[in-house]
């Protein structure tokens, strides 16, 4: 069955709720009949089957994540979401001070199996609905972070997250959802997959090689994974062979996979949709430096957004987000230089 990411997430949530009575969803506009199913249709219609477990909330993000935290400690498996990742910033106290730390503070006496979902991506809405929040959360011990770039992974990672005993934050990309109807996005990229029959999970902590190659390793998540593949296509025609890695889990990183690839190719670029400063690219770069700097044939290179907020105008926005051509250019230069 071929599904979009929005559909795959919906299917996974539905099945997890069927499987386990303690799973519930909590968020704004997620289960209103005649409504949206959340900002991007992920929970659309689920309220019909699970009226008590699709909980619509007031606009109170700190309250939502606090509720999820407390319910998780008491044995539930909440899936809490924000309509845009940007609003996680309204709930940072609950997420970072409480959810991420309570188990540790308790001396391991409790667990906080919260799933948190947040759409990210720079998508024509201006600075406050455009942030890629990943950089803020990889600085936070206690949370696991995943970022599915295909429907296959979305289904499998959502299920793994629900079954995980630790807090898991899922970043989803607005342009990859494949949301339909009134909630569809211009500029969307097809991330749908064939979803096999029956239940499966994608393990948290494991990345995947999306394309094998010899000359350079490109690392990118979510939309940047797709753009990296497109860049690899462009370069292939020029005889440059790129290996593309999708980390899938952003924390803890699957460094074995990354290091092995970089050892093989000797070169690496990390592509990020967020501003370069303090991003995940920095962490990956630093870890590569620490472990295998001897293998490097050219400097570890980051391709990222400028160190500014996201501008609104489409012209500037296109410049802001790394495009496949820009990725290809940079790689061409890297190979030419060294």
């Amino acid at each position: 069955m071929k599904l979009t990411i929005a559909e795959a997430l919906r299917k996974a949530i539905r099945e997890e709720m069927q499987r386990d009575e303690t799973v519930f969803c909590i968020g704004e506009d997620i289960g209103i009949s005649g409504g949206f199913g959340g900002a991007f249709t992920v929970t659309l219609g689920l309220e019909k089957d699970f009226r008590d477990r699709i909980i619509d909330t007031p606009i109170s993000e700190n309250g939502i994540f606090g509720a999820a935290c407390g319910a998780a400690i008491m044995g539930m498996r909440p899936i809490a979401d924000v309509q845009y990742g940007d609003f996680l910033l309204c709930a940072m106290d609950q997420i970072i001070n409480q959810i991420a730390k309570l188990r540790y503070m308790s001396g391991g006496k409790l667990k906080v199996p919260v799933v948190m979902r947040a759409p990210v991506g720079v998508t024509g809405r201006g600075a406050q609905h455009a942030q890629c929040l990943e950089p803020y959360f990889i600085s936070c011990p206690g949370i696991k972070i995943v970022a599915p770039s295909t429907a296959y992974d979305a289904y499998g990672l959502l299920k793994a997250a629900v079954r995980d005993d630790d807090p898991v934050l899922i970043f989803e990309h607005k342009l990859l959802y494949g949301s339909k109807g009134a909630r569809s996005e211009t500029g969307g990229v097809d991330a749908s997959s064939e979803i096999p029959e029956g239940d499966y999970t994608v393990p948290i902590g494991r990345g995947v090689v999306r394309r094998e190659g010899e000359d350079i390793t490109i690392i990118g998540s979510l939309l940047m994974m797709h753009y990296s593949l497109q860049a690899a296509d462009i370069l292939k025609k020029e005889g440059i062979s790129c290996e593309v890695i999708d980390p899938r889990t952003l924390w803890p990183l699957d460094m074995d996979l990354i290091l092995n690839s970089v050892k093989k190719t000797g070169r690496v670029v990390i592509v990020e949709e967020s501003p370069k400063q303090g991003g995940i690219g920095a962490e990956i770069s630093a870890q590569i430096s620490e472990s295998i700097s001897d293998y490097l044939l050219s400097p570890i290179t980051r391709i990222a957004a400028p160190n500014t907020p996201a501008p609104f105008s489409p012209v500037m926005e296109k410049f802001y987000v790394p495009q496949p051509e820009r990725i290809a250019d940079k790689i061409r230069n890297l190979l030419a230089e060294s």
Partner: protein
Amino acid sequence: MTRQDLLKKLGNKKLTDMFERMFEIRTFEEKIQFLFLEGKMPGTIHQYIGMEACAVGVCSALKEGDIIGSTHRPHGHAIARGIPSREIMAELYGKTTGCCKGKGGSMHIGDIKKGMLPAIAIVGGNIPVVMGMALAFKLKGEDRVAVSFFGDGASNEGAFHEALNMASVYEVPAVFVCENNLYGASTSIKKVLKIENIADRASSYGMQGMIADGMDVLDVYDKASKVVGDARSGKGPTLLELKTFRYCGHSRRDPSNYIPKEEKQSWKKKDPILNFERVLLEEKIIDKSGIKELKDKIDKKIEEAIEFAQNGPEPKPEDTYSDFYVNMEVPR
């Protein structure tokens, strides 16, 4: 104030100006709805159709130095505050001629020099900022009032609570205008609020609460004048709730199927523009041909605004790097 006193106080010029502004908002929103659905406009939009009396009633009670803060749904506030439609339109198109030079977009419309903070699209987010603006006015001893617009949904955000309490404690010259349109996105307030009147929350802060009919621009103006006057004269802030309704969807292509048809219909009977037009005609403040003239003028104005916006210059890609730090380049 009685209706007659109010009409007298306002005078014919101001009354027709208010009508014109309301009609301008309606026309602006209807045009861009069309443009948006045609795919000619980037981004997303949240529209103000049905709520025109709120913005115009409140802003008509303000003076030049006053300042307003707005939300994800700012077009109406911006027009009411006097930002030229064409600069708003150009901003929606992401042009350098937009009021934020294309950096802001629909959800961040504003122009500090014209008395409007760029709109803040984080629900509840402008409330603490506006409280801080009012605090500045108080500290500086300036004769200015700060007004925050926000929705029913925003009144459940922690930011609302913290800001209103601080505003009350410091007795700053602010008015907190809650446009209660009964829905936050698709969610009826009945699902997320166990009280009838949001204005009652003022009592938690020892603050004045007040309610006005958000479909009646005269009532809004009347109450707003009172509470803006209180703020200006040092009597402290007010939570002013306007009972209103949006005819359009929440955003973009939302058909608002979550709102019962009857509810929509009953509110449309209270249409703020039709009703105000009737009053103006009845009171002979303007005649039919005057109305027609005025509407034609606005129609033309908005058409011109669209032209201005569509023909306006696109920013250069590298403009991404400007308007950032005041005294430093963007670190690369």
